[in-house]
């Protein structure tokens, strides 16, 4: 099993140049000892610069300290994280490959809409500190002042406003929920689809689309250029003004939470390598609670809250279930 890993490492090293070689090649020379005795790979199933990539790179120094071995971040972006998730599961479950991903919505999406070859149980979430949410927003200079304003305009003429969002996203589901609760003819609304949260937010901030439904955490750097209208959560998040979803849809409001991001392991490791499994869970917990880590990540607007494996896996399973209810919406386009 280890041999496939090493060959990949060598190949990557020779291709990627000196930087990689310096980190990865000593591992081939060393004998197998107590875990961990060589560098550990962190698979990020997204390209450099996104939230997971930033989270992995910012958290790595602290986790490294706990494990006593360097971490190497491997970006495997593509196909809505399907390629990266598949790649991760193909690696041996020996603890030398761990995962940093947006477990929700991508794992359920891979499984429900992309015929992924894996199940949710193949992954074990150690901690999902980042709990994103859909934020409905408009540009700072817009004449749309509130959710009610938005609703009444669309009720009068559903084609009067354009809405920017990502296809097959929690945001899309939330938009549909808001519309159907207010008897807005959703198919007549001018929905504009974007390839990522970033472009969609830029379109909102620039007033290219009238209103956007996009992950809220990513809006923070653009805070001055937008006006938040509605947070899809039961509590206020990140000090956004505007309404929260229970104000608009009632206390038992139905909505989908946004991305749940954090650290995952092979599910099979619990039985195949229980010792290594315990070491890794302990190290991630210790690093998450390290005051220096909390301080460093907070400054980069990254989350470190410790929810623990039990709650994290439950949250993920719950989200997967809700998403299954809206399968047609996520699949159909």
């Amino acid at each position, binding site marked *: 099993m280890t041999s496939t890993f090493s060959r990949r490492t060598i190949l990557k090293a020779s291709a990627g*140049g000196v930087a990689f070689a310096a980190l990865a090649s000593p591992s081939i020379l060393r004998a197998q000892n107590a875990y961990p005795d060589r560098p550990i790979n962190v698979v990020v199933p997204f*390209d450099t610069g996104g939230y997971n990539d930033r989270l992995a790179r910012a958290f790595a120094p602290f986790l490294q300290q706990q494990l006593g071995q360097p971490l190497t971040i491997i970006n495997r972006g*593509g*196909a809505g994280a399907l390629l990266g998730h598949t790649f991760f599961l193909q690696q041996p479950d020996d603890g030398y490959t761990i995962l940093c991903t947006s477990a929700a919505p991508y794992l359920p999406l891979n499984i429900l809409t992309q015929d992924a070859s894996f199940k949710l149980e193949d992954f074990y979430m150690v901690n999902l500190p980042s709990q994103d949410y859909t934020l409905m927003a408009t540009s700072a200079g817009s004449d749309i002042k509130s959710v009610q304003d938005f609703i009444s305009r669309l009720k009068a003429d559903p084609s009067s406003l354009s809405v920017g969002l990502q296809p097959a996203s929690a945001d899309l589901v939330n938009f549909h929920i808001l519309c159907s609760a207010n008897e807005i003819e959703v198919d007549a609304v001018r929905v*504009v*689809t*974007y390839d990522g949260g970033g472009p969609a937010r830029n*379109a909102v901030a620039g007033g*290219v689309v009238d209103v956007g439904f996009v992950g809220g955490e990513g809006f*923070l750097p653009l805070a001055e250029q937008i006006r938040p209208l509605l947070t899809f959560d039961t509590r206020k998040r990140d000090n956004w003004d505007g309404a929260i979803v229970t104000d608009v849809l009632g206390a038992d409001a139905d909505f989908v939470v946004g991305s749940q991001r954090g650290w995952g392991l092979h599910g099979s490791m619990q039985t195949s390598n229980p010792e290594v499994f315990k070491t890794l869970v302990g190290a991630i917990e210790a690093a998450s609670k390290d005051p220096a880590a909390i301080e460093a990540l907070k400054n980069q607007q990254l989350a470190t809250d410790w929810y623990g494996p039990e709650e994290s896996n439950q949250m993920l399973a719950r989200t997967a279930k809700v998403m299954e209810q809206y399968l047609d919406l996520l699949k159909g386009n």
Partner: protein
Amino acid sequence: MVELTSVSGAFTLLSSDMNAWLYLLPGLAIGLIFGAMPGISITMAMAFALPATLYMDFLPAIVFLTAIYTGAGFGGSVPAVLMGIPGTSSAVATTFDGYPMARKGQHSEALGVALASSVIGCLASYVILFVLIVPISGVVLKLGPLEMFAVAVWGMLLLGSLAGTHMSRGLLAGTFGVLLGTVGMNTAGFVRGTMGIPWLLDGVPQIPAMMGLLAASQLIGLINTTYLIADEASRKISFKKILGGVQHTFRYPTIIFRGSLIGVIVGAIPGVGSSISNLLSYSETKRNASDGDTFGQGNPKGVIAAEAANSSSEGGAMATMLALGIPGGGATAILLAAFAMHNIVGGPSFIANNKDIVYAVIFSNFAQAMLLFVVGLGFVYVAGYVVRVPLRFLIPSVLVVSTFGAYAIEGSSAGPITLWVFSVLGWAMVRYGYPVAATVVGLLLGSLLEGNLLRTNQISGGDFIGYGLERPWALLIFALMLGSILLQAISKRRRAKVAALSAAQ
């Protein structure tokens, strides 16, 4: 628009922290080497260096990373000139004339021209940025899908110039490229043309495909040749000729200015950037040049146009990043991550409160551009020795390096497989007289074109004309484009008249 107190603050900042200057040289060198390796992108070079910056102060960290950015931006042009392989996607147009120049034995001149226009383009872009950072950032976010579509269409005009002798074959090759560019999941979530292969969900991997089409196909065609340059006497590496190329560049200030302007503006638009700007600038220059017919056969003006535009895109992308806190592409995303590591969040408040830092970054980039000239001279001198390597050694080594590069950029065998498939395809296209460059342009522009046309349709509810009339910037872009085409037609007729007259006499 320029605040003098902040400017002097910037000088104090830069002169008080000598550390910042120490990182300039290694940054440029790392950038040059990584950029020159086919397949290693600017973003990858910067991502590798990012962890090291954690232990530096803010200004040295940013100086180091932007030095890599600048270095890699030019590094990509070296293999583009010497072997016809764009080291990065922003050097595609450099291959059009740079490589023919090298084949003619003008490799030293071509590298000199490329270096000089890169340095001037980079300087010019930061001058423009220095003066216009606030107004530029005000416009960038307001650009909608119709404006982006207009930019993509403008890029497509290049197809006309690349077609060569058979216009129909050029258009066919371009259309094929656009179709390739639309493979995968589109912006509305539809999946097309993936043949069930998950790697293709994000489209055909652009850089390996491009390397295969442009380079590998050429190299396979060269298999019976002994040297890249047929004439032995021309194979010399001459410092004098490199400097001659540098000097030659200064004769075309208009081309450099136009290229820099296109580069800054296109570079500032998030998601477009230098891989498009070099194509636009090349096509505009060719259209307006009196000797437009010789473009593609080794006209140094083509190299100047491409290089001035791709290196000035850096300034544009930096403007968007500094002013709005928005990454226009991978490189600026890494820079923003470095900002975040030092607890600094880009955006309007950053510029308002830290003008001195912004100006310090701009000034250090002036210095980088100057230094790039010195380091670059040495680098191209050494790199020039490639032409003295017999092709029986060069071709296999380049193919191997490209294969590694293709693996590195995709992180899986999807990269090398794409490279090989497109090498064979490219070879066949060249063999039967279809311009591969047209396919590359189509491939690069395909998704931009389709995605924004689709979004224009969505946003306008199908009423393109009504929506178009509400978008003054889009109208302006279309008007400029039409004007440029008309101007070309007029000047072509005038030239033909003059030629006919002189022939008659």
